[in-house]
């Protein structure tokens, strides 16, 4: 673009005004809504998902799964399968003895079960055959003889020591993890309170339900190396697990994450089927693909843990909180997965929204004979958030306070440390609350709508990337390299995976913004462990913040090289150069400049090929106690939601009529994508609130009751109400251009806001998720106008770690516990 000559004696021409404005604003792409870089390919069907891939001589894999919930494997007879024409290989667990798992402390999975099966659906054997029909027949021809063991399906029962242990590691019996920590004197704080609330809540487990089933294609290359294409959110962690189980050097294993047709956390573990097809490919020398059935996706699970919770919270008459004691019992299912982190997460973020000056958390995760729980959008946070927000709503009524006002008065201040030593940065919850209160007409509606109609509010916060990686290391969490072509093209490489959230667009936008080129000039190469720098993966809402910062650094470094050359060429200092609209020009005289391509050519002539790397590591966290690794983040996002419902008192059915949601995004990178993520989060929250549940039949061998998209109920467009989204933009110093997360946070307030709205509508409390019509009706018909759990089991906490808060003069550390004599408990097999 060439600015027109100023012939109007300073009076702005439209063109001139546009340029001035642009220069003033600085940002050309950030915060706007250009089309998603992968949008056209998705719409036209050109995107290649893992199952779209097909190679010559490709075999199809099917996995024989356990049809019993808990048993020892006595024998596996694969002879009939092997004898079938068209069957090329049959695999059992003995050929892959190394265990794996996402967390270093829970390496408790095998690609195929070796000694035991732990739930209906556990993988036992695999076949590779010339087509799917043969593979199916062969899979069913495999015979496994089991020695049954007593299964356990209820966490409360599982943590009794007298039941058959599911694993030979953990804290004791079927207690996978027990946590207890206290910050400040909670007992004293509760004693000092004017009112103490004590409530027990239950949050049913639910699953991710991505549209795309998991699929993986593996190939042994001619030189004996392995390439795996997979629908995974975490190619880097899969790379490590694959290398470990197959005993191959990581340098000879290449993992490519295909675009995911939805992830939501359900594709962030390394999975048995991924390792199985890789092994089969290495054995047969032929490409091998597996695409899971929908039923198998339910068995992969790693979704929302079912959690029973008790919250005891002290309040002053003005609504401020004196202290909180929060307890949670998680139904972990059959394997560790992210479970240790999930356990901590049910206790970590209670302190981030409102001031909680003293805080205690006790948590236990139990093993049960069900598909493993893991991280689902909001990882470990929606459950306690539901409890806290419903409890606040009850307390507001008890204290005669408006629940919105009460929340506004108790906000955690920005740039502060919480009782559990989380460092809060920018904090835009206040404006979020104000916007939804105003937009919804809250003040005219709360407690004022006709019977059957109700309105409710709830808030939340979420991390923008976990402060620590899954495995301990001192390296960056995200890396980006940028390479400039003399024709003006830009290539950006990053290990991040687009799971639909838009990370490809964020990468291209950050690079294009810095280099002053168009989105179309940036070619991105992502999620390939052989080619792209490591990004830890699309989980914990970390990608925009971490990859974004790395991308900015890489692009700035590349720009610097070009700027040096252009500065010399134009004879002006580099600081006067601006990169925009595919030009490099003098800010003081914008007409003086050259094209971006010319600039790159100058740079390349002077300094050689232009490539630059950037990387990002999160800041250190003030918390130094054991367990302080879960919760810290470079920044926290905030959300507030108001929901209006119509409740049918005769049926208990809830119709959500409208949702207003405010989200503190810091700064949108792409506004349309941000709104899309907010609406997607609301939609998922609606499903969790109203209907979704991982239901099992404990009295029928422990089968999953409804492993299908028809019977596992998730909302349709018919249930989706209008959503009004307000974005609060208060840039965070740690975010790229000030950006914070949006992928997970906006889901969190939806469930409690609906529960609170139901109370406003018909005066009953459903202290349980989902709020299915049966439960609402039971609450209406009950004496105490409540449906929900009444008791909380003894977690058998024997020792609580005590950490001094900042107010107590603490320094983030816990006093060293007295040395324990060597315990006899078995450590995790770390093979």
């Amino acid at each position, binding site marked *: 673009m060439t600015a027109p000559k100023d012939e109007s004696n300073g009076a702005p021409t439209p063109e001139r005004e546009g340029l001035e404005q642009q220069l003033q604003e600085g940002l050309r792409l950030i915060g706007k809504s250009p089309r998603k870089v992968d949008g056209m390919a998705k719409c036209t069907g050109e995107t290649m998902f893992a199952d779209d891939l097909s190679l010559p001589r490709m075999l199809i894999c099917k996995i024989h*799964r356990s*049809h*019993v919930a808990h048993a020892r494997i006595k024998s596996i007879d694969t002879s009939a399968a092997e004898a079938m024409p068209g069957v090329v290989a049959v695999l059992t667990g003995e050929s892959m003895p190394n265990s794996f798992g996402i967390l270093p402390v829970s390496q408790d999975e095998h690609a195929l079960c070796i000694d035991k099966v732990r739930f*209906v659906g556990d993988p036992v054997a695999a076949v590779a055959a010339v087509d*799917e*029909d043969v593979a*199916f027949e062969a899979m*069913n021809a495999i015979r496994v003889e089991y020695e049954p063991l007593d299964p356990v399906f209820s966490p409360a029962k599982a943590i009794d020591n007298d039941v058959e242990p599911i694993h030979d590691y953990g804290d004791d019996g079927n207690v996978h993890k027990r946590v207890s920590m206290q910050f400040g004197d909670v007992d004293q704080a509760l004693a000092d309170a004017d009112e103490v609330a004590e409530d027990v809540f239950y949050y049913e487990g639910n699953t991710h339900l991505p549209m795309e089933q998991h699929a993986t294609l593996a190939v042994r290359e001619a030189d004996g190396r392995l390439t795996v294409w997979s629908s995974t959110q975490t190619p880097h962690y899969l790379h490590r697990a694959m290398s470990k189980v197959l005993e191959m050097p990581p340098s000879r294993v290449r993992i490519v994450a295909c675009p995911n047709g939805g992830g939501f956390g359900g594709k962030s573990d390394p999975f048995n089927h991924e390792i199985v097809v890789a092994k089969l490919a290495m054995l047969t020398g032929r490409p091998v693909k597996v*695409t899971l*059935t929908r*039923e198998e996706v339910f068995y992969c699970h790693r979704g929302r843990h079912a959690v029973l919770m008790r919250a005891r919270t002290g309040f002053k008459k003005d609504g401020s909180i004196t202290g909180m004691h929060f307890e949670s019992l998680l139904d972990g299912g059959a394997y560790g997965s992210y479970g240790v982190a999930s356990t901590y997460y049910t206790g970590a973020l209670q302190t981030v929204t409102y001031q909680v000056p003293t805080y205690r958390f006790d948590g236990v995760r139990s093993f049960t004979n069900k598909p493993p729980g893991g991280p689902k959008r909001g990882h470990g946070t929606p459950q306690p958030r539901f409890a806290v927000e419903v409890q606040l709503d009850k307390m507001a009524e008890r204290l005669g306070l408006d629940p919105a006002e009460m929340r506004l008065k108790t906000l955690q201040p920005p740039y502060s440390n919480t009782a559990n030593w989380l460092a809060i940065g920018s904090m835009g919850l206040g404006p979020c609350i104000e916007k939804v209160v105003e937009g919804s007409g809250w003040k005219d509606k709360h407690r004022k709508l006709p019977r059957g109609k109700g309105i409710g509010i709830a808030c939340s916060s979420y991390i923008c990337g976990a402060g620590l990686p899954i495995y301990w290391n001192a390296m960056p969490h995200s890396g980006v390299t940028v390479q400039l072509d003399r024709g003006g093209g830009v290539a950006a490489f990053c290990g991040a995976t687009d799971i639909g959230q838009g990370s490809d667009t964020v990468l291209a936008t950050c690079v294009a913004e810095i280099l002053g080129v168009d989105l179309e000039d940036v070619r991105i190469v992502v999620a390939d462990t052989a080619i792209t720098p490591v990004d830890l993966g699309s989980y914990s809402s970390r990608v925009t913040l971490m990859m974004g910062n790395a991308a900015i650094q890489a692009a700035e470094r590349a720009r610097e090289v070009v700027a040096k050359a252009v500065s010399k060429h134009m004879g002006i200092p580099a600081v006067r150069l601006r990169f925009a609209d595919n030009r490099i020009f003098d800010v003081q005289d914008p007409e003086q400049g050259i094209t971006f391509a010319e600039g790159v050519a100058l740079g390349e002539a002077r300094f050689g090929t232009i490539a630059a790397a950037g990387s990002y590591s999160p800041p250190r966290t003030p918390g130094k106690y054991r367990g302080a690794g879960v919760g810290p983040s470079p920044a926290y996002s905030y959300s507030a939601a108001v929901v209006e419902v119509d409740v049918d008192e*005769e*049926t*208990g059915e809830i119709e959500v009529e409208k949702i207003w949601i405010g989200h503190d995004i810091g700064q949108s990178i792409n506004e349309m994508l941000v709104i899309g993520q907010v609406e997607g989060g609301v939609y998922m929250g609606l499903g969790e609130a109203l*209907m979704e549940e991982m239901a099992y039949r404990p009295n*029928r*061998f422990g*089968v*999953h*009751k*409804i*492993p*299908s998209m*028809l*019977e596992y*109920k998730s*909302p*349709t*467009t*018919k*249930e989706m109400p209008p959503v009004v989204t307000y974005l609060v933009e208060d840039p965070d110093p740690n975010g790229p251009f000030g950006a914070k997360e949006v992928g997970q946070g906006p889901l969190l307030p939806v469930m409690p806001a609906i529960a609170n709205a139901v109370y406003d509508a018909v005066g009953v409390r459903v202290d349980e998720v989902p709020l*299915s*019509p*049966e439960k609402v*009706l039971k609450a209406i018909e009950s004496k105490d106008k409540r449906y929900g759990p009444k008791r909380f089991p003894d977690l058998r906490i024997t020792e609580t770690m005590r950490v001094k808060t900042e107010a107590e003069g603490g320094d983030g550390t816990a006093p060293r516990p007295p040395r324990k004599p060597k315990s006899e408990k078995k450590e995790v097999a770390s093979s």
Partner: protein
Amino acid sequence: MMRLPPFRYHAPDTAGEVAHVLANEGPEAMIVAGGTDLYPNMKRRHQMPSTLVSLRRVTDLAGIEWGSDGGVRIGAGQTLRALERDPGVEGALPALWTAVHQISTPVLRNMGTIGGNICLDTRCNYYNQNYEWRRAINFCMKCEGDVCWVAPSSPRCWAVNSSDTVPVLIALGARVTLVSDRGVRELPIAELFVDDGIEYLAKQKDEVLTSIEIPAQGEARSVYRKVRRRGAFDFPVAAVAVRLAFDGDRVESADIVLNAVGSTPVVCTDAAERLVGEVVTEDLAAEVAQVAWKPAKPLDNTDLTHMWRKKMVRVNVKRALLELAPGT
């Protein structure tokens, strides 16, 4: 993905030929129309017919013919979408239109037929599962097993009749025509159903359902109320069809039919009789609903709890009556 088992495929042009093929192939042959019920079932290995006889090309199963008296004959091969789009159906038979409109999704209604919905296989969430899943419960009585897992001590299968159109067609007094090599027979649609989750149809294996005749409804009013979790996709977990004819303010004749609360539709004769000669009031509607509620015997084999489903029968019978009462 789940794959279809192998089968032979016939696509004759007339109902007579269909009957002929069925007679020759014996009980291993099955009829397929839209395939929206049968094909998924075959993928799960519920049925593995050696031969499928398709109705797709049979022209004499198509068509919606209105008689001069206002009655209508609907070809069994008519797609649900075609019925839904027929202004005559929407205008004269609103309950049927509502039922059709609420079946599954538009995409499946494009393929599914009225005949298929009438003959819909009974459903149960111990049965409508993959082969591998059913292996974990040692299968069930309806397919390859011995036990009915909903009621393990029961000698019979309790799979649920989940058709939306059936209760409406019964309430409207429809008759169906069945054709076989042995001849043609016509019977009231209510007589097509048997109270058993496995042998749920009185239709013989060699018979093909060719048409449905609905008598003229005159001034009678009818309504269909479907209970389900979501506004699309879902089968009913309780369904109520009511038809009332009035003489002035008073009910002249009444039909109340329930479905999805047992293996067969339930005709609530006792409840309907209470209405005859009466003015429908809130109290009477509640009283009748209380009577209609009794024969509903839902069990724990669909979505939502069976106790709640039973309660929903009462709520929806009452609401249906009030919806049809004059002045509303």
